[in-house]
């Protein structure tokens, strides 16, 4: 078996990305959907760090990853607040039932 290289990490990130999107699309519960989004962000982070590591791009990748973690936190906070608000209004956070606005 070959030494774990860039492609290995990339495969993990692609898989994580796909799983995240799968989660977003298929889960009814809004919190679960948010979890999917976190997975997507994580996969991007892996990419940044892996590319920086193997391409010898310096520390920029890690910095970016840090930023993204912070942004993810901010986004999660706001998203959860919105979910809670929905729950207050509807006593329900099933995303697929939120379709009063449509054509």
């Amino acid at each position, binding site marked *: 078996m070959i030494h774990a290289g860039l492609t290995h990490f990339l495969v993990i990130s692609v898989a994580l990305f796909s799983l995240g999107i799968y989660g*977003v*699309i298929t889960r009814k519960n809004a919190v679960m959907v948010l979890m999917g989004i976190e997975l997507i962000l994580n996969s991007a982070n892996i990419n940044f760090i892996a590319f920086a590591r193997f391409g010898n791009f310096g520390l920029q990748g890690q910095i970016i990853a840090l930023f993204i973690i912070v942004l993810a936190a901010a986004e999660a906070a706001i998203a959860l607040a919105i979910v809670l608000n929905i729950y207050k209004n509807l006593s329900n956070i099933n*995303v*697929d039932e*939120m*379709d009063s606005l*449509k*054509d």
Partner: protein
Amino acid sequence: MTENLMINIAVIILFLPFLGFVVTLLLGSKIKKIYYFENFVLFLGLAGSIIIAFGKLTSFDATTITSEFTWINLGNTPIMGEIKINLGILIDNISTLMMVVVMLISFLVHIFSIEYMRGDPRYNRYFAYLGLFTFSMSGIVLTHNILMMYIFWELVGVSSYLLIGFWFEKKSAADAGKKAFIVNRIGDIGMFIGILILFTTYHTFTFDDIFQQISQGHLPFDSGFWLTITGLLIFAGAIGKSAQVPLHVWLPDAMEGPTPVSALIHAATMVAAGVYLVVRIFGILTADAMLIIAVIGALSAFIPATIALTQNDIKKVLAYSTVSQLGYMIMALGVGAFKFAFFHLITHAFFKACLFLGSGSVIHAMHHEQDIRNMGGLRKKMPITYYTFLIASVAISGVPLTSGFLSKDGILAGSYAFANLTGHYLFPIVGFFVAMLTAFYMFRLIILTFHGEPRDKEKYEHAHESKFTMAMPLVVLSVLSIFFWYTPNPVNPEDGWVLSDWIKAPQLYTPENTRYEFMVPDEHTNVQPGSEEIMYSETYVEAMHAIHIPAMILSLLIAGLGILLAYLFYQWKRIDVGKLVEKFKGLYNFSFNKWYFDEAYDATAVNGTLGLSRLLGRFDLKIIDGIVNGTAYITKGFSTFIGKFDNVVVDGLVNFMAYLSGFIGLVFRRFQTGKVQTYLVFVLVSVVILLFIFKSF
């Protein structure tokens, strides 16, 4: 009398009736007696026309007087060159004679109408229309170019429309007016196309310029064939106006108009305009054109004559007789008997006007009864009417000592001579046969109307002789039907001043190779440059001379035979009409129903047109306006939501686009499910699709 003076008078008498029309129309509702103005104007017109005729025939015998002004001047145009449209007046013998006839009959009809139309709610309007008509007719007569001819031609059509439909409350009258106008227009299209050809070729409308260019060998589209076609197209106008077969159907219907109008329009003037037109363009008719004209004339002489045999409406009989006589004239022109044709035009105008006015007098007396089966015995009640009617009938039948004999005999002789030279014997045969028929039905009319016992006692009791204003025109016209006005020699019109001096056959302008051989001057012909004589070949002149006496005798016999038969049938009742009718029921019905012309037209042209228009209307609504309405219906089957559509959808191509747009919109809407996760699926799918679209660069 100077030329200028004559022109001035001509212009004045042209516009006098128009003045009468305008004044009478505008003041008609204000001033009750304004119709006197119209009558006065007509009197001036008559006087003026006689003065011109006198002046022309005495002082300027051989010259043609014209005067023109530029109506429209387009200047020197890039493609078509110099374009000037001139209008003007032409005074020659023919037009002055025609003017006198028109003015005279118009004047008499005016006089007659004063009594006849009294009490009509639109009394003044009636005279105004008469004025308009007289104006238009004078215009046709006096014009020196074909555009103006067409203009007045149409105006005549309109005034006849107004006059025929004068009692428009009656549906049949309104119908008849419309029919007259439209049928005329059909002929006019031909004339108009003819004019188009002439103008395109010669860039002028003036007769003289056109004739000169033709005589120089400049033909339409450089071919004799097209000259023939042009002549025939213009003749098509005459077919309409002179009620020739197959466009004669309007004339009998036009009898719905007041009877004096019938006398004016449908006997003497308007229908004569067609003949007058052919007279004007005679110089450019080729042999082929003339032959076709002659055929149409012959048919028009024959068919209505057979129809007239069985009609019971006094005016219808006269109407068919008119068509028949006009056919005579046309046929005469077609066979080259130019002078006699025009002569017959004049004589016929007088006696036919007399007949119509006479019938008007009868109808007036019988309280608008027109069916001869309800008349009879009126001779005693209305002697003046009877005798004038009789004289006119004798004249139309071609009995010697009458004007009709002179002109008709000439035509028959001309056709006979023509047949001798070309072998077309059908024309004289038709001519003689129709002469017999004419005599027969005219006397049938007289016998049924005036002789015998009254069949409708009540009406008969009330009948009375007409007043002076109505009787006077009858007398004048009947007197004009006697020979001595035209020639001192009651058997040979050529001796008279009319044919020998007044009516001059025009020069021929057609290339010699397109003429009849006998119309090409040969070495025997006395060629005089500038002479207006038709340059016939000597053979024709000889043939004419040879045929004159036999033809005269034959026509005399034939007229006598017709009159005799009429007496046998109706006066002495030696032959039972009813039985004969039974025996020849088919023929009778055919004649009685006017050869089914109207029915045929209704079935084909009228219904065809209406049907086509309805079809197109529907086409417009259904097909054009909804090529895809159909497509939309198919779409309907496929999609469930199209029902929603349907409320919005109406018709039309635009509507189809609306359909389609709406449909596209609906398709797009389907994606907008309201579920955010579905949206994300769509986004991913789109990205994949984009990826595949652009995967190779």
